[in-house]
């Protein structure tokens, strides 16, 4: 036991000191929130904070990552062999496609040169690993282990092997936060590959679903159509697969169709993604839905 010592501090906490502290700290919180909300004035502070908390975030998922790597290293020979066979077959198919693609790309560039418009293809990519922490169960955001030190910037497009994954919303020195295309606050300008019709795909909050609420009743769209990024807005490179239409609801009493699509990128299963650099300096002739590529403006309240 500790020896008894006289204590001059008040027994009952409260009074003006407590209220004063509450008011001062509450004003401070309000100030922070307003500064953070208004055009992200706290970017520098945030990036420092993210650098401080990143080691803990990393440590949280470290046991899981360790377990996965142990499981991988204990994979049976048969599994590895079957994987190898499958990958070789994949590789063959992809190389065949590549042969055709090279020729097509050259042709495409010649045609574009004739039209004086430049092809915006991804020039450089960086592989980033997803840090397995739950940021918020109701939002579709992930943390990756690359940050401004690796040249990652806000608004950068992220892809996986199957399609567009999302874009960077916040960058720290060694980590970055990515908003998935399925986040309810995200919108991506897309094009129906078959017809070329342009529209916007909104996230729904579920990783397997996008919604396309702005297609008029007479648009030619059927289940199974491929959606590719249109490149308007300049965030995403054009022509990359985004999703596949799963459902077209035609209700004649409504002015617009209710169209649902499924993202092609494995949003909830990926462990690695690609951050892309591409030449986005070209101005599009029709910048109508340009704003849509940004994460919807918080003040807009969509």
């Amino acid at each position, binding site marked *: 036991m500790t020896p008894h010592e006289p204590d001059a*501090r008040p027994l009952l*906490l409260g009074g003006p000191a407590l209220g004063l502290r509450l008011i001062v700290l509450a004003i401070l919180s309000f100030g922070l*929130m307003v500064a953070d909300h208004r055009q992200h004035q706290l970017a520098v502070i945030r990036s420092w904070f993210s650098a401080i*908390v990143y080691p803990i975030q990393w440590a949280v998922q470290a046991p899981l990552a360790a377990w996965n790597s142990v499981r991988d290293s204990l994979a049976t020979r048969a599994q590895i062999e079957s994987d190898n066979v499958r990958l070789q077959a994949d590789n063959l198919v992809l190389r065949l496609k590549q042969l055709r693609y090279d020729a097509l790309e050259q042709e495409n560039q010649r045609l574009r040169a004739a039209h004086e418009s430049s092809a915006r293809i991804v020039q450089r990519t960086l592989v980033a690993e997803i840090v397995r922490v*739950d940021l918020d169960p109701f939002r579709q955001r992930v943390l990756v282990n690359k940050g401004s030190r690796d040249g990652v910037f806000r608004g950068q497009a992220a892809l996986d092997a199957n399609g567009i994954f999302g874009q960077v919303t916040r960058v720290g020195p060694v980590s970055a936060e990515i908003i998935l295309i399925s986040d309810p606050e995200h919108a991506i300008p897309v094009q129906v590959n078959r017809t070329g019709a342009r529209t916007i795909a909104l996230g729904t909050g579920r990783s397997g679903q996008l919604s396309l609420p702005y297609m008029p009743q007479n648009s030619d769209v059927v289940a199974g159509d491929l959606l590719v990024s249109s490149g308007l807005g300049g965030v995403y490179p054009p022509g990359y697969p985004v999703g596949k239409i799963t459902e077209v609801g035609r209700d004649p009493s409504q002015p617009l169709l209710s169209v649902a699509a499924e993202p092609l990128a494995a949003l909830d299963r990926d462990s690695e993604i690609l951050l892309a650099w591409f030449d986005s300096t070209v101005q599009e002739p029709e910048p109508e839905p340009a704003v849509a590529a940004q994460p919807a403006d918080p003040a807009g*309240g969509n």
Partner: protein
Amino acid sequence: MARSTNLGWPRIIAVTIAALAATVLPLPGWLGMVRPDFVALTVLWFCLISPRMTGLFHAWGAGLALDAFRGVLLGQHALTLLVITYVATKLRLQIRAFPLLQQTAVIMALLWLNEFLLFWIDGVSGHAITDWRRWLAVPVGAACWPLITGLYARVVARR
């Protein structure tokens, strides 16, 4: 509940970081949705057990750390935890004297206040989450209170 004690800062910081880590620990599917707000429970426990050392500044700091952790608007958890800690500090002598069940009810009210303020701030800043399942964390958190006090009384408050 254990006696009022003056816990050392290293212990307070360690437990707070553990609570923060528990908040972002990956959980499968629906378990992640009903995850109790461990930081709020921890902050409340400290404010009841050791109000001289912790209290408002601790709650504010923990809230700010939580904001940084989850990448949300900076200051929102700081404000909500500040408010519930203020209420808990004001009522702390009553709350401490309550039997466990009644104490749990008060904690549930405080957690609800916390969640409501977060909901409100989310709405004002234009990031509203209207999914009804967000409120599930409140009763789950309250149900965890007896476990948390039991655990902390044995592990954290031990000399």
